[in-house]
């Protein structure tokens, strides 16, 4: 088992035993993975931040359900993914009739947050939801293709093909923007 996995396991066991300080270590080890997972699904920095917070609260609540020896990263990522999907589904059912609110969401804060992340902005425009999730899980979260296949419950071949295809699309889109 990789050293990182052993560390996260140790901290999760400590948290199970009631040591709340272990949460800070878990947070430091997983914050990028959790944020990228939420961002890939929600495509909104503000929402991703809220869900990220909910994820760690859920980790604290459900820590006794964690099975010692299993992949702690995958357990936390799955929580983040499920919460993000719930949030995404909830938001997709809401249609805003307030045009000023819509304009605000589209233009000001949201737009500004994506100006800080130009590559992600292009990625969310050119890639499908699933493709973006695969790229984020591989590139940012550092999961292996095999692990992504397990998290997304897809065949390994599909993940590999989708990942390579996504990078080609992204490369082409960035090239076009530069021109």
């Amino acid at each position: 088992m990789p050293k990182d996995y052993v560390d996260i396991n140790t901290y999760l066991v400590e948290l199970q035993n009631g040591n709340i300080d272990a949460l800070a270590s878990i947070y430091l080890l997983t914050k990028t993975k959790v944020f990228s997972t939420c961002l890939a699904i929600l495509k909104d920095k503000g929402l991703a931040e809220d869900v990220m917070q909910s994820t760690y609260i859920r980790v604290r609540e459900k820590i006794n359900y964690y099975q010692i020896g299993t992949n702690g990263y995958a357990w936390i990522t799955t929580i983040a993914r499920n919460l993000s999907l719930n949030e995404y589904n909830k938001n997709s059912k809401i249609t805003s009739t307030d045009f000023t609110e819509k304009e605000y969401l589209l233009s000001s804060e949201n737009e500004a947050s994506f100006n800080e992340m130009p590559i992600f902005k292009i990625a969310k425009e050119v890639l499908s939801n699933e493709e973006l999730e695969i790229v984020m899980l591989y590139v940012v979260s550092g999961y292996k293709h095999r692990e992504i296949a397990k998290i997304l419950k897809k065949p390994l071949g599909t993940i590999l093909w989708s990942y390579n295809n996504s990078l080609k699309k992204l490369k082409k889109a960035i090239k076009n923007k530069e021109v």
Partner: protein
Amino acid sequence: MKKKDIKQMLKTEIEQNVPDVLSKVLSTPVKVEEFKKETSPDKKPYFQFRYLYLSLVMCAILVIGIGFFLPGVKSNNVLTPDATNEEYTITTTIGVEDYTANIVTSNLNNVLSISILHNDFVYTLQNANNLTDAITKVINYLQNENALQSNSSITLAVLASINDKTEQSFNEVKTSLQNVLESKGLIDVEIKY
């Protein structure tokens, strides 16, 4: 720009934008849930019985299916059912004076055709349910033609497409013919083989 650079840039920009939510998480009061097994004890038998019922239904369907398609258990098999799955044809020839009746059956009891040859003419009789029925029809025809009387002589020949079956089939046909003749009161008829 290379793929490697794109990946690195994407990773860096996400890492730089990760919000800090730890203080909020730590300040939120949380009630840690006690671990409970997902399945309650009263649910377990339900699942076990459900699969048991399903298995029983499947078995019943399988048994009915096999029974339906098995050869030799059809309702029209009045004589000895054929225990083997081997298919063969039997040609039974009944000769009375210048009448020659041919009954062709598949596996003894499945009658394929009944024909009577007389004076270079061939008469085809309506099909029968089984061999006994076919023999009865032939005897009726011969009686109507006044070819068969109580003192007549019948020549019987049986030929099966599988040699091993000839003797067994002959005995079956002979018994059947004798039964038909007795039922019609033609007890003095001589059967030649």
